């Protein structure tokens, strides 16, 4: 789906929760096979365990870069959901902590907005497989917001 007017597209997204349309519009999100579900009012982003995302075929384990990309995407989706953005937030920086080896299964991620002001948001995100209490990776990052106030 082509995005002609980002502001209108994002307002519609917040209304409908149709993240599949957003993912359809982003080639790399499609490449990762990302999926967003709204569970108890919060966003859960899933990345499937597929061959092309494997970094180490011996273990085997997903590539750390793909887990980082999942976490960054989950953070941005959360901002799009919670903040009245008129454009997709730009990543200023991210730090990813790798906590456990990522098995080749579905990986879930949930993000929390720690703080957001007019221009910048600080977001944390965690990824897990099976048990949310046993995260495989954690991210915190800063994102530049574009709202009607900025």
């Amino acid at each position, binding site marked *: 789906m082509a995005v002609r007017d980002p502001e209108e597209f994002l307002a519609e997204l917040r209304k409908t929760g149709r993240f599949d349309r957003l993912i359809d519009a982003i080639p790399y999100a499609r490449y990762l096979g990302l999926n967003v579900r709204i569970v108890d009012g919060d966003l859960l982003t899933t990345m499937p365990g597929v061959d092309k995302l494997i970094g180490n075929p011996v273990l085997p384990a997903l590539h750390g870069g793909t887990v980082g990309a999942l976490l960054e995407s989950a953070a941005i989706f959360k901002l799009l959901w919670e903040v009245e953005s008129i454009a997709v937030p730009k990543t200023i920086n991210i730090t990813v902590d790798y906590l456990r*080896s990522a098995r080749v299964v579905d990986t879930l991620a949930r993000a929390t907005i720690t703080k957001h002001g007019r221009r910048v948001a600080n977001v944390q995100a965690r990824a897990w497989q099976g048990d949310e209490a046993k995260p495989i990776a954690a991210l915190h990052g800063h994102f530049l917001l574009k709202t009607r106030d900025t």
Partner: protein
Amino acid sequence: MGALDGIIGKLFGSISPHTRSLGFEVVSMKDGVAVAKIPYSAELVGDPLSGVLHGGVVTSMLDTTGGVAVISAVGLPTPIATLDLRIDYLRPSKPGEDLFARVECYKKTHNVAFTRGVAYNGDEADPVASMAATYMLRTQAFRAPGGG
């Protein structure tokens, strides 16, 4: 690249399905410094309006190139695992242009290797992103850099 470096460099491009899928290739690796390349691909775009590559591609690239730099510093294929990775996004990658990374392993202790580097298009002096990452050395299960 020396003979061993050349083999290790090739392995990083071809053993990992993900780096193979990205078209990742090691351009050079010597004395703890690695240079790598990912060709521009429409599939890896993060912003459909501009055609700019997704930040996740930069993450995968810098994680992997950092691992190659560590292996180069160690001098032998050794099991390592990324502990943490910080990336500062300095400007968007130019649409249509290949992405390069240059990462240096500037300190290595018994257990941990420390790296820093940049991702860039044509000009290393005008980087897309800068990174700092640490890697655990001699992890028990063999992990390729970026392998979880």
